[in-house]
């Protein structure tokens, strides 16, 4: 979490190799991300990370089904291998009946769940989510966060999420606060003692104290 311009999205983009960091290095599973090139880089983008956007970024001229399979066609993965996974994801994310629809025919929540299926289709080690609830109403945001938390719980999928929303953040196990490109605070939810409601309140309190910027650092 962090204020606008603090560098949250930049960090995500660096990890996603969309941009190249000016200095420093990113290590993922023991590998230097910025040193990857060619096929290894494509593999990394396709199979090790999944990206979830605030605005869903579904291609509006592709059906839900085609959108989900897009990473496969980008990274040259045979469709057969992932068909089962697609069915499982579609069932879990409750998007079976919108698979043949175009994004313009879906609700915001459905769009974001289709986008989630797309990010998960290649079974990546980590999901990078850039304000995934930003464009959703509270009901749809809650539904999405429950699904993501469930994925994390059941499939051990790591999710690195950028958010302003304390409610969404309360589903997380660990929260890093970032300001001017520096991590300066961290909150961890003690599981199972601390309930989500209690963690939410703790986040709110931390946010209130952090509100003044670096001058008010705890």
């Amino acid at each position, binding site marked *: 979490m962090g204020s606008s311009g603090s560098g949250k999205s930049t960090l995500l*983009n660096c990890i996603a190799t*969309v941009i190249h960091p000016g200095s420093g290095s990113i290590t993922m599973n023991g590998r230097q991300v910025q040193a990857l090139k060619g096929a290894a880089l494509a593999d990394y983008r396709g199979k090790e*990370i999944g990206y979830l956007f605030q605005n869903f970024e579904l291609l509006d001229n592709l059906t839900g089904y*085609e959108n989900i*399979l897009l990473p496969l066609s*980008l990274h040259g993965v045979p469709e057969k291998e992932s068909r089962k996974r697609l069915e499982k994801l579609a069932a879990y994310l409750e998007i079976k009946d919108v698979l043949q629809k175009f994004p313009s025919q879906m609700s915001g929540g459905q769009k974001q769940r289709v986008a989630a299926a*797309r990010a998960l289709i290649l079974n990546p080690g980590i999901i990078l989510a850039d304000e995934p609830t930003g464009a959703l109403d509270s009901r749809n945001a809650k539904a999405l966060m429950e699904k993501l938390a469930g994925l994390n719980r059941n499939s051990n999928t790591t999710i690195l999420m950028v958010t302003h929303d304390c409610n969404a953040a309360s589903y997380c196990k660990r929260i890093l606060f970032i300001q001017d490109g520096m991590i300066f605070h961290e909150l961890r939810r003690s599981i199972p003692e601390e309930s989500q409601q209690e963690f939410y309140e703790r986040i709110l309190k931390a946010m209130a104290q952090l509100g003044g910027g670096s001058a008010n650092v705890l």
Partner: protein
Amino acid sequence: MFFKLISRNSRRNRKENGLLFSSLLVSIIAFYIILALPRQDVMVFLQEMESVAVSKLMTLIPVFYGMALFILFFLIYYASKFQLERRRHEFGVYLMMGMRRVKLFAMLLAEDFRNSILSLAVGLPIAVLLSELVSLVTARLVGIGIVGHQVSFSLHAVWWTAMGFLLIKLTAFLLLSGRISRQEIGSLLTETPDGVKRQLPPLCYAISSLIGILCLAAAYAMAIKGSAWQGIRNMGLTVLLGLLGTFSFFWGLRFLMGLAVRSGRSDRRLHVFNFRQIQETVIHRSGALAVCSLLILSALCCFGAGVAISRFYGESEQHVLDYTFQTTENMHSGADIRQTLAEHHLDTRFSDLFEMKVGHINTSDDTRNAFRMEPVMNALRDMPSSADRDVLLNNLQFTTYPYLISLSSYNRVLTAADMPVLELGTDEAAVYIDSSFTTNGRTRILNEVFRSRPETVLDGNPLFLTGTVQTTKLVTDRTITLSFALILPDDVFERYTQGSYSVYLNGILAQDMARDTSLMSAISEMNSALDGTGLSYESYLQNMGRQLFYMVAASYITIYLAIIFLLIANTVIGVQFLMGQQKSGRRYRTLIRLGAPYRTLCRSARKQIRWYFGIPTVVAVFSSLFGVRALLTGFLSYNAKEDLPEMMLVSAAMILALCVIEYIYVAAVKHSSDRYLLSLIVPEREE
């Protein structure tokens, strides 16, 4: 500041949108070339030879100019549209910052005007040079040294070029800026793909493509069979079927595209994405694609027909004679003409002067039965049935009173043409048919008939037809063209004509005369010397002039139109693709975020470009196979239709030329697309 902005913007426009700038140059060059046509060497030359025909052609120039204005307007319109569309965001920002719409309009107008003037400054010199080059090349190709090269620069042409260009540029600008300025700031600031169009059930589109294919097939059949040429109604129906077929085929094409999306392995790199993109453009622009396809078809037809026609007319008959003098009331015989020539010391300029004697059968008044050739007709009837045989059977039944030609004079023509002379017995005759009245096929049939020396009857006496059909011209040009004549030995000729016949004095210029200058200038010089003698004559120049006229008229106009059509169609296709690509920029950004490398994106876009250009082009090429043949069926006489292999060669050259032009366009569009995609790779901060 305002003017600095204008100057900076117009410079950026030129740099970023080479397509627009080159379209502007093309328009200027096209206008100038058509307007400067009367000043071209060939035209100046033809003006002397075929002044009536040339003047008629020249009166058509304003019509062509108007047509070029109309057609090129679309070129400019589309290129400018692309230009303005890509700057939508910028306009939105200007308006957001409080620029008044009037001021924005003034700024755009000033930019536009600045670029127009610059285009004229660059384009006009290129146009003048190109026109000069065309003039020199055509003069050289047709071998005129006569007139001496004249500079084809024409101030009148420059003035009208500039006026026409500014007119269409301004019209396009007003239309486009009107559309842009009416839009909300919000819609200017965001780039959105064209909205979703309401889709009908796929069956409708399948039926539409089927109807399109059926209509096209019917149009092709009508065109090829020649029934299209039987009247305005038939022609109208053919054209209507063709248009309807093309439009409904393109409208229904989305069905086939949908099949393409589903077929093939969808895990091929971006296969589904590519076909959805193409499908989208097909859905939104099926009309424009159909028009482009029709334009390419028109270009191919114009080009093919033009080249074929000019080849046909340009195929000069063997050049043997330079002059033919006719007897008149003052000059009763060949001797009189020779004397007049000698008096003016012109006889020495000829290497050969001989008389051509042609007369009627004066021993008989019975024009219906003077000559009978039943055995020939019977032999023809016995031959296998063919169109040529039927034509011969029909035509020859009327040849009952043929012209007669004296053998010795005809042999002089053959000698001059370096051909073996004819030898005939007293009861033998050879048949002469002017080449414009026969075809290779018909000549072959007759030669076969004459091989058996059929016996005919001339004024009650037996006469055996022998040898092959003679077609070498009797005179220089068109003083006499005979559809059927008998070549008879001199004494027999004298007997039947009873000494009363027409005499034409043929002349061949001395070699050294023609060697010093070109043949054309030798004849032209001779003509001016002869004009003072009062002799009635025709020279090879007239023959040459007519051929040239057809050649130049057909090839200039058709090739000119073909090039313009091709340029417009390709520009429209290219611009539409690039506009569509920019509108769907967001999709490409998503692909980049999903990890698509630059190279994959470029490959995907390139594939789309190939399809986008390929669909209308392939349809046009396919249609042109029928279209060109139909045009040839309608325009050309039987002679030319026989040269199918040669026509095929012309078609191959044509398709090759098309491929080259398409390649250049596709490469340019690919380059633009690659550059655009590269600009997307740099991530943008989105809040």
